[in-house]
């Protein structure tokens, strides 16, 4: 799992972040000023600073945030000038937008804010619909508006071309002020919350940002996308009351707290309407005590009441955002926040420590216990001088509120001793005597103990603000009206209040703090740094103090130096912090909890520095190998003291019996292991069964087993065992264990046994062949030297495959051991060099480089309806119709309730939602129409349509472990690595990828030592791409989403991204979908399963001349560095059964015959992906001149010639 950050603000307004892999709070040094609140997403963090402006900190990522501005230049032909910019009066502007309606001269384009910069100047786009134009990028038409073509025709009267300019967001990793909106923002913001990134399928970067102003209004920030991280404008959201705090979850939950203590819930938030439509009211958890704070996640709502009690809302989901009832939880908190995966963070009301809710899982959303996060802060050591300074400045910046608050809190400590939590606060009108005490107390304090002046600042003063003002209506009214005046710099005096000279803090005439002022100003003048602070102090009033009153911290009262003891937090945000119940955190080192024994031999969470680690570990490794030399190497001929004997493990399982009718029967299963004559290990597996009352058994030698495939489904924990014979039959031994655990134990044991018998140990070699099943399981095979030999290659069905932990959809490798994978959720992963993970435990797994891996995929069901003349579309179909809720085929009934995740490993993480991204398009409600079932569907209703369907999707998540580390942040759909061997481990290896959106990317800094590389280089294209491959001599081929191929020109080590795309027409009437480039061969697969070979590719003309059909029923192709060709084929007939998704190897590939002759069939079905691009081992050369003429090849189980795969 990648590292992510938890953000927090301490009571002095300093911003800190804590990494999920870290053990200390890192101060955000960049923050020039103090912050009041922060709200984080994974890619950025928003905050309200003490100047009341909103700031945005976009985390630097590999892909720059860039935005393409475009404008069109339009010209008309006239007989005199030819094409010129003299247009007809009725025509569009010379420079306009694509529609022609908007006048857009080049110099009209401005940078949206100072956080942006231009990447370059305007230039003409010379491509048109994926093809290069003749010259200057013109496209022609008869008239405006019409269809444009790239060729000039006799009737082309107008032409246009596109001008492009990119701007780039430059304010990465720094707090950039969001320009305020002069016109409509009357008052400063007091709360902010971001979320909503899961509402729709927009790529990462889209956010909903909600803000609350001091007057209690709610604002929604429009237009926040990846390309526009700042958003465009604030829109006010109408309210039923006045809001004090708001919380927005990753999905469609938005809750807010009203001044009066009730809660409101936003309804109608959806894919097309992130802002929602209306509010629903929910009462405070406790009738007498109002709510003060709310925090929402995907499916949870937590709230705090004025008495600091914690509440959990039952039954919340996206259909019922209001939930059903409150449950009281333990703990007293002042602030609460829900992070990713519904994990909960809170700040204790007593100790102001950050608490993490342990044990929150999707099935137990309320978690188990509060656990304090106790890690040091990076500044803690040098605290005394440095932070004293910052405290002081904090005090200044927080002007009015700060001082007022410290005054009140001290007062309170005297009058109401012991009430130290933030909720107990003073309301001016109700406790006048406390202000009588205040002066005396305070006039002494600064003089006697200057240190106690450490301001009891809080950046969460607003929380407490609302707490304090729940009182007589009048008070709160008054306070609120005063609120903005206090905080705004250019204040308009309100209702007779006195305006202070500089800052404009209002002084209520009724208050009697006058005598105090000199004292305060004296103190402040000594230490203050700015005028601002001074004046702030002078005009402090009891009224403002009650307004911002607050959080009465005990630290200064009890112990002026208490700050050093432990940090006091004011605000925390987990919106960017990806933690779940599996994550191992090092945040709790001080607290010992003996409750659970975690399975972790590896977790060495010891605070030993890496340098030391290296030294002592290295010493042990070296000495052990010395010891072996000293004590064993010369004595190998000695007899071993212990003879190896047979070891048997037995168990009971179910077996899918070989004879008809096939069914599961109970069997005894045994694995006998023994040492072979040369000390190598071997074994036999036995399946003892009854055949008509007769005891029989089936056996297989462990050294013949070629693969163990887990086949988990919702009813059986089963796995399949293949031998070469069984592969030919397409009929494995299928066994099923009683429990998942038992299955994993057996699989791990059998796998170790198989590896031992073949002498395979440790991580896969650099030459390894990687493949993936349709379940996302990853397998790897060590190629033998003779795998690509001519004329007798190793038969494909004899290859031994072993599993590697993790879950992927695509894997690609090269011959120096760089391996990348892509998950179902399009996350990119890089191989760490380990082995094992997943169910492999203990010795079958490496420890240092196994990480948690999460994958998410959608499960789809279809809602089907038929039209009838009376009621229109209803769910009443014809008797012959499919189920009204079904799978895609319509053959199986699939309802929302009976549908289960694909296997027990998967858990639902969302509710059913309508899927609008179906091919063919949908209407607004997601329906697709057709004349009848089954037929081709389209996205709008016509007269001929009588049925309609729509697709529902539900996300499920799998958490596993494997030797993979995430390469954030860009989701990918394809990746390719140059297969050829690099000269050294620091040589840069070209790696290209296609992003989920179809952008072509080039990874920089990839070497054998740093396989993850450093950053992405964006390669411009005119249309989205879907497949890419780089072969020897830097030939880069790609397939666009429209099914055509492109060749990238001039790619070299000097110019890793090349210069331009050459369009290569696809085979006639076929849309290509995948490409793979070997040493010289270029193979593509089209959407109809045809495999094509590119003819005529030469060094001087790398684009080749034409496509030659090789085979059909092909799903995927991988061409390797030896020009070897492997495919995943469908419909392979075995002697017992037919299989889809079978690994096949092209035989007879030779330098002069790169297309090969026939297919050899390997493991399958159920395979989805293979890459042979790591295998660059030249086979030993065998010269058998007499055999070269002889065909067919003497390899069993092959068929001759191209259409072989079909049947």
């Amino acid at each position: 799992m990648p590292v992510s950050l938890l953000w927090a603000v301490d009571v002095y307004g300093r911003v800190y972040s804590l990494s999920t892999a870290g053990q200390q709070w890192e101060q955000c040094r960049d923050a020039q000023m103090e912050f009041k609140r922060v709200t984080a997403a994974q890619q950025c963090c928003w905050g309200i600073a003490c100047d009341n402006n909103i700031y945005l900190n976009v985390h630097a990522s590999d892909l720059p945030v860039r935005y393409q501005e475009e404008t069109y230049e339009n010209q008309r032909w006239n007989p005199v000038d030819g094409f010129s910019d003299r247009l007809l009066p009725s025509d569009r502007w010379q420079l306009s937008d694509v529609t022609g309606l908007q006048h857009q001269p080049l110099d009209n384009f401005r940078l949206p804010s100072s956080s942006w910069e231009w990447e370059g100047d305007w230039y003409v786009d010379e491509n048109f619909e994926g093809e290069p134009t003749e010259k200057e990028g013109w496209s022609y038409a008869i008239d405006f508006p019409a269809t444009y073509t790239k060729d000039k025709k006799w009737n082309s009267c107008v032409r246009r071309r596109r001008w492009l300019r990119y701007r780039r967001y430059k304010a990465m990793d720094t707090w950039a002020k969001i320009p305020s909106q002069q016109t409509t923002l009357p008052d400063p913001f007091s709360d902010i919350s971001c979320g909503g990134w899961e509402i729709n399928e927009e790529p990462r970067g889209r956010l909903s940002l909600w803000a609350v102003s001091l007057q209690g209004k709610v604002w929604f920030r429009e237009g926040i996308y990846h390309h526009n991280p700042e958003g465009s404008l604030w829109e006010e959201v109408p309210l039923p009351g006045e809001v004090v705090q708001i919380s927005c979850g990753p999905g469609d939950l938005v809750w807010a707290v009203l001044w009066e203590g009730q809660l409101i819930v936003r309804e109608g938030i959806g894919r097309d309407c992130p802002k929602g439509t209306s509010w629903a009211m929910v009462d405070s958890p406790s009738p007498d005590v109002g709510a003060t704070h709310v925090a929402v996640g995907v499916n949870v709502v937590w709230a705090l009441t004025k008495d600091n009690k914690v509440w959990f809302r039952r039954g919340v989901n996206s259909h019922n955002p209001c939930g059903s009832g409150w449950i009281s939880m333990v703990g007293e908190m002042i602030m609460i926040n829900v992070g990713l995966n519904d994990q909960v963070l809170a700040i204790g009301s007593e100790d102001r420590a950050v608490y993490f809710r342990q044990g929150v899982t999707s099935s137990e959303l309320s978690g188990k216990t509060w656990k304090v996060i106790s890690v040091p802060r990076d500044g803690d050591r040098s605290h005394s001088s440095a932070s004293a300074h910052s405290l002081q400045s904090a005090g200044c910046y927080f002007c009015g509120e700060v001082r007022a608050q410290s005054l009140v809190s001290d007062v309170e400590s005297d009058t109401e001793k012991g009430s130290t939590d933030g909720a107990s606060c003073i309301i001016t009108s109700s406790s006048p005597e406390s202000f009588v005490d205040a002066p005396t107390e305070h006039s002494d304090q600064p003089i006697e103990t200057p240190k106690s002046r450490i301001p009891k600042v809080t950046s969460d003063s607003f929380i407490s603000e609302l707490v304090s003002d729940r009182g007589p209506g009048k008070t709160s009214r008054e306070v609120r009206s005063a609120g903005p005046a206090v905080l705004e710099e250019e204040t308009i005096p309100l209702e007779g209040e006195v305006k202070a000279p500089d800052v404009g803090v209002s002084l209520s005439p009724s208050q009697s703090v006058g005598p105090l002022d000199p004292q305060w100003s004296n103190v402040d003048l000594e230490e203050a740094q700015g005028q601002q602070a001074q004046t702030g102090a002078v005009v402090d009033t009891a009224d403002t103090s009650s307004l911002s009153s607050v959080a009465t911290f005990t630290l200064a009262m009890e112990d002026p130096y208490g700050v050093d003891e432990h940090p006091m937090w004011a605000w925390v945000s987990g919106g960017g912090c990806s933690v779940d119940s599996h994550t191992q955190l090092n945040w709790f080192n001080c607290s010992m909890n003996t409750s659970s024994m975690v399975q972790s031999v590896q977790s060495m969470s010891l605070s030993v520095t890496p340098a030391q680690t290296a030294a002592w570990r290295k010493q042990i490794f070296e000495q052990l190998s010395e010891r072996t030399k000293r004590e064993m190497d010369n004595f190998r001929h000695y007899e071993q003291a212990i003879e190896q004997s047979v070891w048997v493990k037995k168990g009971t399982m179910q077996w899918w019996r070989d004879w008809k009718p096939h069914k599961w029967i109970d069997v005894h299963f045994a694995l006998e292991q023994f040492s072979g004559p040369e000390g190598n290990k071997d074994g036999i597996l036995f399946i003892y069964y009854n055949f008509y009352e007769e005891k029989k058994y089936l056996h297989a030698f462990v050294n013949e087993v070629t693969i163990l495939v887990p086949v988990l489904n919702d009813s059986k924990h089963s796995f399949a065992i293949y031998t070469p014979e069984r592969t030919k039959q397409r009929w494995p031994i299928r066994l099923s264990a009683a429990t998942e655990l038992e299955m994993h134990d057996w699989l791990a044991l059998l796998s170790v046994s198989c590896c031992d018998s073949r002498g395979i140990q440790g991580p896969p070699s650099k030459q390894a062949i990687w493949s993936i099943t349709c379940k996302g399981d990853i397998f790897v095979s060590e190629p033998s030297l003779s795998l690509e030999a001519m004329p007798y290659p190793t038969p494909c069905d004899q290859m031994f495959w072993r599993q590697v932990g993790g879950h992927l959809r695509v894997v690609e490798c090269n011959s120096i051991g760089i391996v990348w994978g892509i998950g179902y959720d399009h996350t990119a992963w890089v191989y760490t060099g380990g082995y094992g993970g997943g169910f492999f435990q203990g010795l079958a797994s490496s420890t240092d480089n196994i990480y948690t891996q999460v994958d998410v995929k959608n499960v789809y069901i279809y809602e089907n309806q038929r039209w009838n003349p009376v009621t229109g579309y209803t769910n009443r179909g014809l008797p012959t119709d499919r189920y009204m809720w079904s799978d895609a085929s319509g053959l199986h009934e699939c309802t929302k309730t009976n549908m289960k995740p694909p296997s027990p490993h998967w858990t639902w993480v969302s509710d059913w939602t309508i899927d609008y991204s179906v091919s063919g398009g949908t209407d607004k409600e997601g329906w697709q129409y057709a004349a009848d079932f089954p037929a081709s569907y389209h996205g709008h209703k016509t007269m001929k349509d009588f049925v309609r369907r729509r697709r529902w999707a539900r996300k499920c998540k799998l958490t596993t472990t494997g030797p993979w580390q995430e390469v954030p942040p860009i989701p990918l759909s394809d990746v390719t690595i140059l297969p050829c061997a690099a000269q050294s481990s620091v040589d840069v290896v070209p790696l290209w990828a296609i992003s989920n959106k179809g952008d072509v990317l080039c990874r920089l800094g990839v070497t054998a030592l740093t396989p993850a590389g450093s950053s992405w280089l964006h390669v411009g294209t005119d249309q989205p791409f879907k497949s890419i491959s780089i072969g020897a001599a830097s030939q880069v081929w790609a397939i666009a989403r429209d099914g055509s191929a492109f060749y990238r020109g001039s790619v070299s080590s000097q110019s890793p991204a090349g210069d331009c795309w050459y369009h290569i027409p696809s085979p006639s009437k076929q849309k290509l979908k995948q490409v793979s480039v070997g040493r010289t061969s270029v193979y593509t697969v089209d959407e109809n399963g045809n495999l094509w070979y590119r003819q005529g590719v030469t060094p001087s003309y790398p684009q080749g001349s034409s496509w030659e059909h090789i085979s059909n029923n092909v799903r995927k192709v991988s061409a390797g560095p030896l020009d070897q060709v492997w495919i995943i084929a469908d419909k392979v007939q075995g002697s017992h059964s037919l299989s889809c998704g079978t690994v096949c190897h092209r035989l007879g590939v030779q330098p002069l015959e790169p297309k090969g002759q026939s297919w050899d069939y390997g493991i399958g079905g159920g395979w989805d992906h293979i890459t042979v691009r790591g295998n660059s081992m030249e086979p030993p050369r065998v010269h058998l001149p007499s055999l070269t003429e002889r065909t067919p090849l003497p390899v069993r189980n092959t068929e001759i010639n191209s259409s072989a795969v079909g049947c």
Partner: protein
Amino acid sequence: MADDKDVLRDVWFGRIPTCFTLNQDEVTEREAEPYYLLLPRVSYLPLVTDKVKKHFLKVMKAEDVEEMWLEYEGTPLKWHYPIGVLFDLHASNTVLPWSITVHFKFFCPLVAKKLQYRDLLHCTSNSVIEAHFMSSIKEADALKHKSQVVNDMQKKDHKQLWMGLQNDKFDQFWAINRKLMEYPTEEGGFRYIPFRIYQTMSDRPFIQKLFRPVSPEGNVHTLGDLLKEMYPAALPNDGEQKRYQVVIHGIEPLLETPLQWLSEHLSHPDNFLHICVIPTPTD
């Protein structure tokens, strides 16, 4: 760099080349040839000397045979110490193979002087070793996990540990022993580290006390910390020549090595970390 798992393998498959010779005083029918064997460092002498016994019995009369015991340069070898510990303690820095003298009688004056050894040398059957081995594992788990792990195991798991050791089955043993090496992540280690410190210079058999892998302040304890507390003399003083070697499995780990890591990786199958402190050879 190699994986930590490889350490487990190296430790398990450590072998000491040994030459067994029959004691001069034994009565034989003909001359006894020496017998050469690779002894597993992690095993116990009675488990691996069946072949030795058979070899020498061939040249002896049945009536001259009492019980076999072994001795190295005048020191009787205790059966209940792991072989590697015996070797490191008595014979490290000597020429290989390790030369062990085989006795079949208890009458020699050497043993008469050290009668207390008789018990320690007396081992009637493998079940006695099994009992000793299992009680060590239980003791170690009591220290590591308040016995929770070993008590949660089934009888067959215990058996598998023992059979793994007896038959030199690394995978079989570690399939179970893995569980004994787990600990709650947040604690950073076991409750106490099961260790024994042996010394040649003392009559005390070994030092064994309670010692935690992590200090109350959260610092990781190292091998050096342990020795400072248990056996300060073993540590070299500033500027002084190193007087003692601290040997585990025939190697000298750096004193900075975290104790928890040592316990997980360099413990013997009985789950104890056996540390030998021996004088630095003076040549």
